[in-house]
């Protein structure tokens, strides 16, 4: 049993690290194509060996530790960053699982009943690495980045958690495997994306903010903060921050596909009842394809939407996402209590979205009419 676990952990770690390296390559290529450039093409055919070269560079570079930093915390921050994000993977299923313990389980720790809670608990620990990194660097830019990050992560944790509560209520379990099972056994139209579109939107937005990706990458926005919390980090320690961040992206993509896109389920080819040779591999492939699609989407978003201003970021969370996710949760509770059909939830989600937009439109319109020139930090007039 122990060896099975060890092998699984080893394989998953290796997979994550390799895919991180190549995701960075893909992101650079994609970013280049989006800007009508070519991207890395010097190392190996099509630049395919670029991640390798980068890895070697990270290992061989001089590792500068500034003299005025808090050494212990300075060293701890990057290791925390990579540890917490990797730990969250323990309960994320990357393929089909079953309740029968004799069957092969595509998850490191099968049957964890508090799966979601675990991921959130460990995931929010990641902000410690950022705060510690920023604090220990003893540098004002790093500190500002870390402060922004803590405010941002704390704000976005609430809509993130509330948005998935609806999903959890519908499935009746916090276990990610059960949530997939619930969607898979009810068929394509019961994917949570269709019954909970608003929750999916809120989840995607907050997850982007949680992982400090553009358009929410204020903790490390180059124009204002040089590098943000990792300004003072170099060589492998910087690489660890980077890897942690990318692993976070992979994790949220997994969560997104598990919670809202039915996990390994796909009509006809990967159903609950499908029994043919290699069905497990097909299911893994389906999940991987969904995850990959979401990651590509995240990269596309990165080069599409400009960065938010800090007050916009905060007002989006507290005035937009938090109330919306609470309303959504309330609707799910009603639906569960009175046994409403699921399409009611879809309609309710869309109605909430349109209603919120109307309110927002009126608010913006009022601001235009007043001709407000006041600083947005002072709030609306």
């Amino acid at each position: 049993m122990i060896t099975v676990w060890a092998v699984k952990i080893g394989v998953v770690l290796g997979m994550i690290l390799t895919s991180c390296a190549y995701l960075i390559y893909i992101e650079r290529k994609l970013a280049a194509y989006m800007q009508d450039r070519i991207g890395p093409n010097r190392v190996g055919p099509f630049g395919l060996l670029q991640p390798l070269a980068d890895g070697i560079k990270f290992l061989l570079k001089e590792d500068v530790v500034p003299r005025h930093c808090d050494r212990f915390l300075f060293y701890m921050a990057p290791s925390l960053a990579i540890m917490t994000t990797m730990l969250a993977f323990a309960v994320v299923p990357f393929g089909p699982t079953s309740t029968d313990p004799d069957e092969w389980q595509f998850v490191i720790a099968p049957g964890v009943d508090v799966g979601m809670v675990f991921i959130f608990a460990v995931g929010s620990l990641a902000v410690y690495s950022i705060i510690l990194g920023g604090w220990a660097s003893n540098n004002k830019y790093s500190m500002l980045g870390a402060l922004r990050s803590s405010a941002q992560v704390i704000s976005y944790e609430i809509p993130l958690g509330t948005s998935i509560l609806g999903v959890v209520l519908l499935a009746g379990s916090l276990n990610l495997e059960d949530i997939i099972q619930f969607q898979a056994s009810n068929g394509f139209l019961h994917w949570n994306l269709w019954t909970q579109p608003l929750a999916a939107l809120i989840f995607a937005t907050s997850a982007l903010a949680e992982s400090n990706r553009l358009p929410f990458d204020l903790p490390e926005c180059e124009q204002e903060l040089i590098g943000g919390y990792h300004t003072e980090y170099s060589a492998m320690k910087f690489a660890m921050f980077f890897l942690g961040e990318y692993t976070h992206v992979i994790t949220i993509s997994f969560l997104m596909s598990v919670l809202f896109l039915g996990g390994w389920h796909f009509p006809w080819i990967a159903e609950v009842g499908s029994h043919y040779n290699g069905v497990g591999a097909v299911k893994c492939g389906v999940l991987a394809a969904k995850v990959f699609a979401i990651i590509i989407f995240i990269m596309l978003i990165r080069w599409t939407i400009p960065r938010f201003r800090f007050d916009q970021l905060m007002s989006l969370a507290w005035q937009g996402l938090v109330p919306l996710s609470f309303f959504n949760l309330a609707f799910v509770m009603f639906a569960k209590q009175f046994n409403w059909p699921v399409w009611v939830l879809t309609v309710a989600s869309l109605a909430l979205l349109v209603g919120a937009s109307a309110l927002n439109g009126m608010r913006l319109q009022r601001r235009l009419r007043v001709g407000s020139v006041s600083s947005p930090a002072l709030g609306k007039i």
Partner: protein
Amino acid sequence: MAISEKDIVWVEEPSIGLWEAMYLPAIAGGLATTIRHVFQKPVTEEYPEVKPVLPLNYRGVHRLNRDEQGRVKCVACMLCATACPAHCIDIIGAPTPWEDRDKYPVKFEIDELRCIYCGMCEEACPVDAIELTSIFDLTGLSRQEMIFDKDKLLSVYDKTVQGGKDPARTTRGVLGPASENLVPAERMAWPIDELPSSQVNS
């Protein structure tokens, strides 16, 4: 002068409707733009493999022109060295061994590292002896190497003439007040008798 009332156009900020306030349509539109660009041809020029073709009026490395007998055309009048804002031209003149002019440069050096490629020298030259070519990628391993002497500057002339890369001004007829047009007719931009008369030296 005050702006008259009828010249002022007052514009209103466009109103924000439900559609814009939803943000999502705008984001979808943005995504469409981004995706469209993914499939567009990159504009990147892969420099060392693909060299750009620069316009012939580009101001790059200098050349010293030759007259019809292949001698240096410069008369060592020092006008270019005087005009040069970077003081990077160093000339030592001497009486010529030839019948048709008094002086020629025994030493003519341009410090290409100090030059700012302003083109003052070619404008100052009364006999159109110095010109800037469209050669831009000059490199060297030492500072000394980048100080171009007379032979090197003359070899730039040979190279550009052979490569058909005469600077634009070469083929515009006579520009300097004491210059003679020595450029053969087939190298000219347009027939010599169509040039403005002020540019044709009698």
